[in-house]
């Protein structure tokens, strides 16, 4: 706390402030110079447009969240723009292009999956007991057990251990009685 120390301390802090100010100035001019170039050469993005889009979307979210609005977002449909109504499960009927049966549209995908032998459920089913297999194959003769992809699971289907292929073979096999 002697006077020279105080002077040194203040001189030090003055010097460091001086350098800090110089560094800060240098950084500021750096950024300014960079932005100046970008602006002068027309390379900057059109910030006004971007801000406008942001503003519009914020406004939109507010309006949609407001329950007093018509509730367009979550309302149940009454009629579509053509004046039609539609059931929860599509009820158009057409023929399956794989097996030829008449299927309802809303249930077409699960049918096709089994029909083509694809999907987890279809494959899992084939590893069940022989009774289930027997029931399936004896029920509908029009269902062709043959499909281009039968090879992958035909081994599982074989009840008597024979590598089954076509539906004709199965009708002649004797199944185990349970």
């Amino acid at each position: 706390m002697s006077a020279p120390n105080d002077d040194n301390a203040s001189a030090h802090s003055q010097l460091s402030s001086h350098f800090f100010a110089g560094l800060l100035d240098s950084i500021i001019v750096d950024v300014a110079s960079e932005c100046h170039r970008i602006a002068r050469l027309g390379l900057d993005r059109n910030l006004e447009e971007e801000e406008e889009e942001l503003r519009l979307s914020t406004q939109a979210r507010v309006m949609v969240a407001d329950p007093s609005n018509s509730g367009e977002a979550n309302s149940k449909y009454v009629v579509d723009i053509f004046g039609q109504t539609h059931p929860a499960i599509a009820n158009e009927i057409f023929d399956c292009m794989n097996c030829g049966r008449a299927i309802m549209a809303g249930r077409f995908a699960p049918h096709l999956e089994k029909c083509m032998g694809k999907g987890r459920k279809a494959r899992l089913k084939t590893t069940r007991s022989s009774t289930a297999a027997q029931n399936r194959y004896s029920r509908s003769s029009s269902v062709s057990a043959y499909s281009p992809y039968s090879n992958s699971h035909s081994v599982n289907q074989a009840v008597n251990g024979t590598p089954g292929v076509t539906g004709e073979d199965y009708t002649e096999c004797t199944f185990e009685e349970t």
Partner: protein
Amino acid sequence: MSSKNNHRRDGQIPQPCSHLADFRSRNGHKPFRALQECLRAKPLGRAAIRRDPDEVPRCSACSHSATHRLYACVACASVFCHSSQSSHAAIHAESITPGHEIAVDVDRAELFCCACGDQVYDRDFDAAVVLAQTAASTLGGSTLPPVPPPENLRKRRRVDYRPWTPDPRERFLMGRGSSPLQIGDEDPSCLPWGLRGLNNLGNTCFMNSVLQALLHTPPLRNYFLSDRHNRYLCQQKNAAGHDISNKKNLRPCLACEMDAIFSAVFSGDRRPYSPANFLYSWWLHAANLASYQQQDAHEFFISMLDGIHEKVEKDQFKPQRQGSGDCCIAHRVFSGILRSDVTCTACGFTSTTYDPCVDISLDLEPNQKGSAKIASSKSLHACNGERDSCGISTLVGCLDRYTRPERLGSDQKFFCQQCQVRQESLKQMSIRKLPLVFCFHIKRFEHSVTRNMSKKVDRYLQFPFSLDMAPFLSSSILRSRFGNRIFAFDDDEPDTSNELSSEFELFAVVTHTGRLDAGHYVTYLRLSNQWYKCDDAWITQVSENIVRAAQGYMMFYVQKMLYYKASEKLLSS
């Protein structure tokens, strides 16, 4: 920023101030080129002006070196300090007039007019700086990076659009070979063509949503409606090589199925259509995706484009270059080219690769603390960060992040050809060629392999209705890497279509609501600036606000302006 230059083209130099103009007319470009010897550029750093590499510049008048900015007079090479308070550089300029007004910032290599007190720009000076920078970081010190852009970008000549109308003979032929669509007794409010619901066949909303977007993708729609892929002719050709009796052996043609859907949807019949044949053909093509389970719409999109491409490619004899878009309509519409630059942090050597892409998958930024509150209407200046000051994620922000230089981890060291060792490096993506239609896919579904679980990111993402892709082009990214200098980088071919049109308009948004395992896809379509919601069989009209507030999963943008290229071959009539 001058307001009248609202949409100046990249790299156009502003008018030089009178002092710079005088200097140029008096000395030409010689002094700037001469400065090249004094340009010292560090790899990945910016250029500085030093007479010797180790010089510490000082102001000739007052010997300040640290606190004031230093400028070297271009005419006499003496260095002076300059600040708003005191400027020996300005004094120097005034004292020896004319001819000494132009100086160069020694630390940034920027030209400065001491008389105007403003930064000025000159093409030749910038060229010298760029050459110095590339020389510092290129293999063998050659002046330009030897990266040839992919061959297919040698542009074909652009031609003017010539409108066409059929002559009487053609009109007769058209009339004979077609039947006009009945408008029926719809009210004359004239609902747009091509709006038709698609029946959900059992968890197939993922397929319906993407189909709706594709049905209204302008170039794709025009292609199919112009009968460019006639399913009858295609099936005839297909059948010619196979045993027709066994229909199951025929390879499915997804393009034919698309053609059928286009015909059905644009027929004027407004009852919902069941895309059953399409589903069947798609499952034949994508056996691994065939199951009665909710699928990912984006995965379906990629699979579908692949299906259209594969079938077409097998029919052709010569392999097409990737990314050229000449192979099939799917790629013609969606395919762009991405450029990836990997730069060695030690020596600055850059290795560039080009890859074709049909879409861009963007990450939402990782969760930050605090929820994204709905901000007040006053938003502060949108900064370069992904989140603006309101904390909302934006599509433009995601693109910024996508094209930002990324420091690869120390476990991913890249072998640098110049250093001949593995070095830490920076990677930066940019878009070399814009597709006609951009599909942005937001990665909302996170799959964690380690924990064997997946979750959905519900965070809102703002997306603009109009989008300018210019800042993400390779030319822009490359330019900014060199300090935004005015220079014709070898990427900037004068005929490049990017230069004229990088503006895109939103026309379809696929949204996902609900949980990962129990969710629902819906598509919003923009037709004649009216928005329609396509929810499986239900088509309803909605306001713009609903779309803006929706949770976007895939956004489709189309180029505002399309150009015609001179045809390489004559079409057979």
